[in-house]
Structure formats: C-alpha cells, structure tokens
C-alpha cells in the first residue's frame, strides 16, 4: 500500500511540473496535439494509403476480403451454427464438473465489454457523419462477414494458448502464429508474432486507450462546460493506475457488472426513439439503401459510404484484429472450436445490433441536413463532413440525436461513455500487457513499465484533438489486422479440420447436451 501511495504522489508531481513548464504561448493541449500529430503522421499515411488512382484504402479491402474468404472457406459458418452458438453460451453443452471454470458466457461477455464501447457510440456517428446513412448498410454487411474472421481467430486462440504450471493461461495471435506456423512447417512465425505484438501494444495505446479517453473527455466537457483535456486525462489515468498497478480489482469488477446493463439500457432507449419516429421508417431505409449504392452528395459518393461503413465496423467489432482471441483463449473447453462458435456472436451483437441502433437513431431523428431541393446531403466544407443540425460530430452527434427525443439522455450517455471507455481501457491494458510480456518476458518490472506508459497515454489521448487520435487509433488497430490475417490465412486449414471433426461428431450424437 505504501508503495502505491508513493508512486501516486510521484505521478501527480510529474503532472504538475509538466503543467508549469508549458504555460507559454501554446496551451498544454495544443502542444500535446501538435507533437502527437507530427509523430504519428507517417504511420497513419502508410496504413490508410489508397490503391493507386483511387480513394479506396488498401487496408479496408484487406479486412473485407479476409472476412469474405473466411465466410466462403468455412461455408457461411456464421449462419450455419448460430443456433448451436447460443446453446453453447447458455451452457447446454458445458460439463457440470467444470463449474467454477470460465464459462463460454463469461468469455463472451468479457470480450464484448472490450469491444462494445465508444466505437458503437462515437465511431458510428463518425461513419454516418462522413459517409451518410449508406454507411450503415456497409457496416452491417461488414459485421456479418466479420463473424467468420472472429470465429477463425478465437478458435486458434484457444487451440494454441500457453498453459502455465500455476494454472494461468496466455493466448492470442502471438501464440497461435508462432506455434501454428511451426506445426505447419512454415517459416516466419516468430517474426510475424513479434510484429503483431508491437502493433498490439500500439493499438492498446491508441484505440484501446487514447480514443476512449478523448471521447470521454468530449462527453464530460459537453455536460460540465469546456475545460482542458489533460484534467480528464489525469483523473482517468489515476483511476486506471489504481486498477492496473494498484491491483484494486473492485473498480474493474463494478464496471464489468454495470457495462452490460448500460448496453441494454442504451439499446432499449434507441429502440424507443426508433419507435417514436416509426413514421420515418420507409424514408430512413430508403436513405440507407440509396446511400449505399448511389451518390447522395457525401465525400466519395457510394464508395465513400462503403469505406466509412467498413472502417467503423472493423474498428468497433475488431474482427480480424486478433484482440478478442486474447480474451477468449482462457475458456476451459476440450473443443477449441466451441469458443470460435461463441465468439462469432460478438460482431453480431456489437455491430449488427448495437452499432446499427446508433446509426438508426441518428438517421431517424434527422440529424443530418438534407438539401430539400436536390435531396442530397449538405456538406460542411470546412470539416469534410455532412452538415448536422447543431454542427455536432462524433459522440456529440449521437448525444444530440438521443437528446432530440429525451432531453435527459446526454447525462446518461456521459455515464455510459465514461464506463464503456473505462472498461475498454481495462480490457486493452490487458491485451497490450500480454503483447508486452510476449516481447519482453514475464516479470514485475516489465509489467510496471507497460502499465505506467499506458497511464501516460490516457492523458495524451484526453488532451489531443479527435482527428489525430482517431487516425492513429485506427492505424494501430488495423496494423494488428495486417499481421493477424496473414496468420489466419496460413492456419485456416487447421480450423477447417476442427470444424469438420466437431460438426461430424455433433451430428452423429457423440457430442451431446449435458442438460
């Protein structure tokens, strides 16, 4: 306890001296912002480089092609086994003697609390704000295809995890790429795994941390009035520090318990708002389909909608990214494939259900300004986004859409955003830590260095402006997908063997319900 207190005092003292040193011409926020943007620009440009002569980023094609390949290779597995997936989550096939071990439900819920977060609230608003209602269509499609990617990576995550003598487990792409490549006699497994670990650490600092802190600050300052971002950053960093360094689990446990209820409340409210505006249903879906295939005046036309939809779906559900494989790998099961079946529900719940709810509320409440004469969306030239009623973007747009029906909703959304941001940070601190210890070895000192860095980036994220943060967050997470998907392509025959064997035994009655 003494050690914790000392470290905390040291951390806050460092924060104060940082503040005193930059009270010059630029504010602290501006300094952090400029430094951050110039340091990460090259990386962002590389990841989002378009195909020559087009505006289509190669990385988006990479993810969607992979999801489509897995969907076809496994014969539309996501639609064939969904009933069985639900039975697995309910525990129908769980051995009662394994009670007390991690259940399928728990692994799914924990992985979901890492993905359900600001991507669903703010990310979708960004997609619809830039890509128009048509982005919703592509987002849902990407979610459905992404189920196959998630299935592949989570099966491998369980199959190739490390089980240590003390009973703890470590799993994820680092492990399946190394072991799986060796098993198939393919070279380069170790290099790819190390590369993945590097990107996973960056992703944990970016999308799993800075983006969350940034949007949480935007929400808080929207309700409490404008104040410097670093203040939110420091408060968040201290709480995260208490949990991940101080080992005070109770805060994380409370969040993990509250988050699912917030998610249900959020979807319930969204449904009510949709019902309140049910008269717009024909028009709204007309906009979604028209926007998906025709030029409605948004930047890039229908292709712009597609890029936004795919990008935000991938960012939200993380299918193909490899992060969920880390969370799912600890389940106690004799059949790794069952965890794959369970995990494919994740993109469905995250993207097809929750993200779509957000998009529909924004569209149904008519936040986006349409030119009444041409029927096309009015562009805000300064920002490159569609003009909105109050000039909102990101989480502000979602908040305004919900507030148009329930004026109290922004307050609830602040709580939801802060909790979602926090639970996502805790999950990603774990993913990043696993990658970190994979690279630098297990040990208390190594862990502490990572955790302190993680807390530092919370402050950076809250202080930087949305543009550079969201770009870097996307870039780091997508870079994980580059490496992970190469691994999945090489290892997918192994998963295929597992699927065929398992489904055969399920049909023959060898695998039966316990209940």
């Amino acid at each position: 306890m003494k050690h914790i207190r000392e470290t905390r005092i040291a951390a806050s003292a460092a924060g104060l001296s940082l503040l005193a040193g930059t009270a010059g011409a630029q504010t602290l926020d501006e300094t952090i912002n400029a430094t951050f943007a110039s340091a990460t620009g090259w990386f962002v440009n590389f990841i989002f480089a378009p195909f020559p002569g087009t505006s289509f980023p190669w990385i988006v094609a990479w993810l969607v092609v992979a999801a489509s390949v897995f969907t076809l290779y496994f014969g539309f597995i996501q639609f064939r086994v969904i009933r069985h997936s639900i039975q697995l989550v309910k525990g129908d096939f769980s051995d009662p003697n394994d009670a007390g071990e991690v259940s399928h439900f728990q692994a799914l819920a924990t992985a979901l609390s890492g993905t359900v977060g600001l991507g669903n609230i703010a990310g979708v608003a960004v997609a619809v704000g830039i890509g128009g209602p048509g982005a919703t269509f592509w987002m849902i499609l990407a979610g459905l295809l992404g189920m196959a990617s998630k299935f592949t990576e989570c099966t491998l995550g369980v199959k190739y995890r490390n089980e240590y003598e003390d009973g703890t487990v470590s799993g994820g792409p680092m492990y399946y790429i190394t072991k799986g490549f060796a098993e198939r006699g393919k070279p380069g497994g170790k290099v790819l795994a190390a590369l993945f670990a590097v990107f996973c650490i960056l992703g944990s600092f970016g999308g799993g941390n800075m983006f969350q802190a940034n949007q949480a600050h935007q929400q808080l300052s929207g309700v409490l009035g404008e104040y410097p971002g670093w203040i939110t950053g420091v408060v968040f960093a201290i709480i995260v520090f208490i949990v991940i360094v101080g080992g005070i689990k109770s805060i994380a446990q409370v969040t993990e318990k509250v988050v699912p209820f917030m998610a249900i409340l959020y979807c319930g409210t969204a449904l009510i708002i949709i019902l309140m505006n049910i008269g717009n249903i024909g028009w709204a879906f007309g906009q979604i389909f028209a926007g998906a295939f025709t030029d409605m005046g948004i930047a890039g036309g229908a292709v712009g909608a597609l890029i936004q939809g795919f990008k935000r779906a991938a960012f939200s559900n993380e299918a193909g990214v490899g992060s969920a494989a880390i969370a799912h790998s600890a389940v106690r099961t004799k059949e790794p494939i069952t965890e794959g079946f369970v995990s494919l529900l994740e993109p469905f719940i995250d993207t097809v259900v929750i993200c779509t709810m957000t998009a529909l509320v924004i569209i149904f409440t008519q936040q986006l300004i349409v030119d009444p004469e041409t029927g096309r969306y009015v562009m805000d030239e300064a920002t490159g986004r569609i003009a909105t009623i109050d000039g909102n973007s990101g989480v502000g747009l979602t908040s305004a859409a919900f507030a148009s029906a329930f004026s109290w909703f922004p307050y609830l959304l602040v709580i939801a955003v802060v909790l979602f941001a926090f639970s996502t940070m805790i999950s990603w601190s774990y993913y990043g830590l696993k990658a970190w210890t994979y690279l630098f070895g297990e040990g208390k000192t190594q862990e502490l260095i990572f955790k302190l860095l993680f807390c530092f980036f919370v402050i950076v994220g809250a202080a930087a402006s949305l543009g550079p943060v969201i770009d870097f967050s996307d870039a780091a997470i997508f870079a994980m997908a580059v490496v992970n998907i190469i691994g999945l392509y090489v290892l997918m025959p192994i998963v295929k063997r597992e699927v065929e064997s398992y489904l055969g035994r399920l049909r023959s009655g060898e695998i039966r319900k316990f209940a």
Partner: protein
Amino acid sequence: MANIYVAGYDGSTAGRRAVDYAVARAEAAGAELLVAHVLEWSPYSFLTPEEIAERHKRRTEELKRAESAVTGPLAADLSGRGVKISTEIRYGHVAETLCEIAKEHGALQIFIGRTGHSTVVERLFGSVAGTLAQIAPVPCTIVP
C-alpha cells in the same frame, strides 16, 4: 441402496448445528451422511480479462482451501461417530446444487442450517434455507 442424508455445510456455526443434527438423525436411522460444501458460483457473472486468465488457478486454490479449511476438519472431527460420512465440494448456486446432489445420490433428506437473522437482502432475494425449502425434491430440515 443405503439410506443417504445430505447436509449442507458452509463452515459456519449454523452449518455445524445442521451437520450435528443430521449426524444424530442418520445415526438413529442407520443412514449414511453426505456433507456437501457448495462454493457460490454463477457461469453468468462478469469477470475482468485478468480474472479470466487466472480463473483455473484460482479454482484450484479455492478447492484446496475448501478441502483443508472446511470439509477436511469436519470429516476428521466426525470420524469417531458411528455414521459413515463422506464429503463433496462443488461450485454452483447453493440451494440448486444441494438439490442436484440429493437427486444424484437418491438422498432421502436434506439438512441445512440457518443464521436466524433476516437481513434486508435476504428479505428481498430469499436465503439459501428459504429457497431450499421451496425447491427441495426431498423433505428438507432447516435447523435453527
């Protein structure tokens, strides 16, 4: 099949009263006694990623502790009595798991202790003894 009684035991004094009462009844009836210790667990609770990674380790530790601190000492204490006593440790919802154990072993009776004071929580959600009284598949004796 021998007559079997099941007694729920959580290591508390109330639990011990129930076990002692069950031992006396079993002795009188020439029955065997199965002492069950249930560790409260729901497969639907929420865990952090770290708790998930450590779950198997924790479970092993919890079982070991239950054996060494709860069922082991009890079995040793009752070894001189003229009743055949066995113990079982399980995870699950306490009342439901006791019922399952009773069904599996074809037990004739379940014995359970109660604390006697009724907290607000218990008034709202019901106590183990209260639930058991409602769902037990065999006669259930609640020992005050």
